[in-house]
């Protein structure tokens, strides 16, 4: 339990506010209605998405989406199929680069950066279909994740004189990997190939692996898809516990009830843009959202 660092906690300085101020002004002019909903901007906003747009050929998958995620919250991103949730995720994490718009993480522009650069800034994601590394063991999966490993430099790994430092770090990471696996109650699978895990166990492993990077914020793409109710409960417990430790979560989810019950804030996407943003009780009563989910034209 001691593992996730208190460094990653909510005591982050407010760098974003000043740096971003002009941007906000500009954006507000364009979609002030969305801004209205989020006027009560609190202390810290690690992730800010502005006018994000992505077209594939003639199809506009994401159309001027703007939203922000508050520090230390679980924020849900919901929307019907094809609303552009996964594309938005891929745009934030650098898998796709946006046609226009910007993504700011902790006050720094990360628009269009390579996925590894974004991950190294502490914005780490999981995938909709759990992408564990099948022919690697659970432990190897876990040990892959940490940032700043000395042994990732070829010279340090190979030369005898330098290798002892690598070994020391490996032992440290191994201890942390075991602790994290215990926390997720999959430590009994540590030596198995990840490919042999069940769907739900893979989801647990993915989240555990993402935690090993010591992230600032986690983006979870449908973390509960294909997970049985017991495991879902377990996964939710973990996410809530981590939030209490100060982690920030943005999660994409289909299941509207699950989002309403577990998120402090909800962002609703429809046809590529943000339809509504706010606390669950507000969203629940929003007519536009209800219409969107009933499939009616707005």
């Amino acid at each position, binding site marked *: 339990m001691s593992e996730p660092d208190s460094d990653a906690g909510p005591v982050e300085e407010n760098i974003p506010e000043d740096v971003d101020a002009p941007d906000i002004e500009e954006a507000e002019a364009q979609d002030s209605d969305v801004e209205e909903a989020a006027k009560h901007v609190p202390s810290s906003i690690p992730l800010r998405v502005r006018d994000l747009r992505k077209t594939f050929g003639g199809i506009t998958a994401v159309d001027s989406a703007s939203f922000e995620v508050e520090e230390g919250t679980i924020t849900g991103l919901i929307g019907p199929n094809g609303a552009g949730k996964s594309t938005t995720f891929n745009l934030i994490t650098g898998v796709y680069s946006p046609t226009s718009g910007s993504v700011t993480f902790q006050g720094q522009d990360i628009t269009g950066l390579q996925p*590894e650069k974004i991950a190294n800034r502490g914005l780490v994601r999981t995938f909709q279909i759990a992408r564990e590394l099948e022919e*690697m*063991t659970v432990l190897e999966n876990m040990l892959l994740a940490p940032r700043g*490993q000395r042994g990732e430099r070829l010279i340090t*790994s190979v030369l005898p004189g330098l290798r002892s430092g690598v070994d020391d770090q490996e032992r440290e990471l191994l201890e942390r990997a*075991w602790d994290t696996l215990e926390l997720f109650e999959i430590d*009994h699978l540590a030596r198995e190939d990840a490919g042999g895990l069940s769907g739900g166990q893979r989801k647990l492993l993915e989240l555990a692996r993402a935690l090993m990077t010591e992230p600032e914020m986690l983006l979870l793409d449908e973390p509960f898809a294909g997970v049985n109710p017991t495991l879902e409960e377990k996964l939710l417990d973990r996410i809530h516990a981590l939030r209490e430790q100060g982690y920030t979560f943005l999660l994409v989810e289909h299941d509207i009830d699950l989002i309403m019950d577990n998120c402090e804030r909800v962002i609703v996407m429809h046809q590529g843009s943000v339809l509504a943003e706010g606390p669950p009780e507000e969203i629940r009563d929003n007519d536009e959202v209800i219409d969107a989910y009933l499939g009616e034209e707005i």
Partner: protein
Amino acid sequence: MSATDSERSVRGALREMVTDSDLRMIAVTIAAVYVLLVGVAFYFDPDQAVNLSATYIQSVTIFIGGYAMLTLALNLHWGYTGLFNIGVAGFMGVGVYAMAVLTAPVNPATAGATPGFGLPLWAGLIGAAAAASVVGLLTALPALRLRADYLAIVTVALSEIIRLLLNSQALSEVTVFGATFGTGGASGINYAGPSPIIAGTLFDTLAGPVTGALLAVGVDPRTWGIRPSNFEGMIYGVVLLVATAGFYWLLFRTGNSPFGRVLKAIREDELVARSLGKDTRMFKIKAFMVGCALMGLAGALWFGRGGFTSPTQFRPNITFFVFIALIIGGAGSNTGSVIGGAVFAGFLFYLPQQLGTVIPQALPQGAGAGDIAAAVAALGGGDVLPLVGYTVSNISRLRFVAIGVILVWLIQRRPDGLLGHRTEPASSIDINQRPGTGGTDGRPAAADGGEERE
């Protein structure tokens, strides 16, 4: 129940005896190759058996060393990182020619021979690895952005481009800044090869004292009838095996480390590795360069050993042989790579070739039919000898049919190769041992029924 149990334990014990140490597995494989070849020598040519055995052993050892080194290098590309490099021959060619150009004499004794830089052998070997890794870098920069199958096309094309360049008259002799050197074009290039320099010198210094020592204990090696060139070959075979051990050590450390862990992750799912913050492009470039350097060095030590090279040595078939060796041994396993190299070189490549020479000599004169039609026709008359004769006299060609059949069988029955199923944990420490628990039981997880898959 108890019968099967004891049977299983006996089989387990036997398997453990052969497989518990990687070095022993490799030694057993090579010993099996030797035993078979010595058996062939004694059966077919008892008069010359000792010298023939020595000939067999020296040349098969060189084959084994060469294939094992190349397979290890390819394992870093394909087995570990999933880079589908089918330009092995090209990178070998670059290595051999770099050594040749660097070490060829500035003023060749023979008129018309291609001059070089006249550097010592060690400079040539370093140059071989460096040149191949630079060519690897130049290939990697554009090609590693491509999907795996396109990398394959680029590398196979590159290896042909290299061969044709070496063959071209334009590069056969050039003068740059007053230094004249070149590839010698289609007629090749002469230089001071590593085999005469290393093995020749070792033989000259050791022959006298060793013979003296053996004579002192009453053994006279001169009566064995082994030609000096065979001793020299055997010494060079050992040199290649030592080099193989060096390759193994380097690649073992590369693979079993955090660096190797990222390579494995790239093979499995590159986007995951990137999403965890790994700059996979740099990892791929480094792995590709190291593998290419080793291919160049292996080429220089093996193909370039005799002091002459020409472009015809670097046809793409060598690339496919190395792939076959890797598939046999099991991609992803370094020990498997060495065993695959030994099995391919010994049992599939060298042994059939020699059988094709000795068996026809042992058959009655004119037993073999001239062509397959005549051989099959004779079967009608109940005479199998023409077909047998035809088969063995063409065995060095037919072995490739056999290799194909074995490959198909292997991929169906054992797609992981001999050792590909083994897990070589990608860490510099033993990660199966939980730190702090201190127990000797390495696998408590098995109790959870984790073992049922296999």
